[in-house]
């Protein structure tokens, strides 16, 4: 066994006894162990060490007084945790109720209006439609960097040609994306805009959010 092999063997003895070597590495190390008494001594020390540490420095008996005091202290911490768990759904329910009530009072449905606001710019035109193919793909990862991308929403096949309805919206990409791959899940909800509904949807949008151009 040369110097490098010895060094490798010494470095991997602990892994050998922890069963972390591949079968090939294990066979190689076992062969060297049989042939080298010095390595055997070190290996023996590895096997002895665990037992030595546990027998000569055994675990002290548990400090039951400290444990009881800690349990009492933690139980106090548990109460706010339980209260928080009760609060969360009730707050969410109250918020939903308030939104719904607000929508009813103003004479409009609260949720659709929110959805419409999410559409930043929609390029769409009423055309005779023969068939539609939804091309939206599920995407993942929301993080830090907001970027504006054009997301294909639907492919519309007309009598003359096929068009893809495109919506420009802010989505969030992970920093690692660097512009490649699918965009991250939209930060604003993606809404299926059908051309038959588009004029109503656009009419409901506030002035600043109306589409700048019509593509068809």
């Amino acid at each position: 066994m040369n110097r490098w092999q010895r060094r490798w063997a010494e470095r991997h003895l602990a892994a050998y006894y922890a069963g972390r070597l591949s079968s090939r590495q294990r066979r190689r190390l076992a062969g060297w162990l049989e042939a080298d008494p010095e390595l055997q001594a070190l290996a023996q020390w590895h096997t002895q060490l665990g037992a030595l540490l546990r027998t000569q420095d055994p675990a002290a008996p548990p400090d039951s007084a400290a444990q009881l005091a800690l349990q009492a202290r933690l139980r106090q911490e548990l109460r706010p945790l339980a209260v928080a768990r009760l609060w969360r759904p009730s707050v969410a329910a109250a918020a939903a109720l308030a939104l719904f009530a607000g929508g009813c009072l103003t004479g409009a449905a609260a949720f659709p209006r929110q959805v419409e606001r999410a559409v930043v710019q929609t390029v769409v035109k009423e055309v005779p439609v023969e068939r539609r193919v939804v091309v939206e793909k599920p995407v993942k990862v929301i993080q830090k960097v907001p970027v504006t991308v054009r997301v294909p929403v639907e492919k519309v096949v007309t009598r003359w040609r096929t068009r893809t309805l495109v919506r420009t919206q802010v989505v969030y990409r992970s920093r690692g994306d660097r512009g490649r791959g699918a965009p991250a899940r939209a930060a604003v909800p993606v809404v299926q805009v059908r051309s038959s509904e588009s004029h109503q949807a656009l009419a409901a949008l506030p002035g600043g959010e109306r589409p700048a151009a019509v593509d068809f």
Partner: protein
Amino acid sequence: MSDPTRSEDLALVRRVQRGDAAALDLLVERYHGPLSQFLERLLGDAETAREVTQETFLRMMGAVARYQPRAKFSTWLYTIATNLARDELRRRQTRASRATELDDADREPLAEPPTPLAEAALAQLERDDIRRALRSLSADHREAVVLHYYQGLSYKEIASVCGCTVGTVGSRIHYAVRHLRRHLGVQEQAE
């Protein structure tokens, strides 16, 4: 292969998340002893270990609502404890470097090299010798040794606790074992 302790822990944690005090007591009962011993070996001081153990459980309570079972609960708990122990060791180091006027004679005695021992004499080693040898290791190496040999954690679990790779754990254990061997006076006899 499912680990029964892991699933039991997870069930207890779920109950704690629902506000079950009995489950919390069981978790504390299960981990208070091992954790305080681990910290005592790491910090070399029972009193500080007790405080850090308490702090570990309090941190655990603060984060248990967000706990996701990606790692074993015990690994997660040891990670919190290890981070707190590192903070404590760092504070100690800062305090020690500030105490420049401290007389050398007043300093905590550093581990002096022991007299060489025969393999058979290993059994005669006292607890203090072992503790002294452990204290002479660097913090990273001590963490790896205590987690592996005392707490019985696998390399993978230690890597997760220490925030390093499995290879680094192997390397740390190797150097720590070699150091302990030398420190406890075995190598001189073997050669």
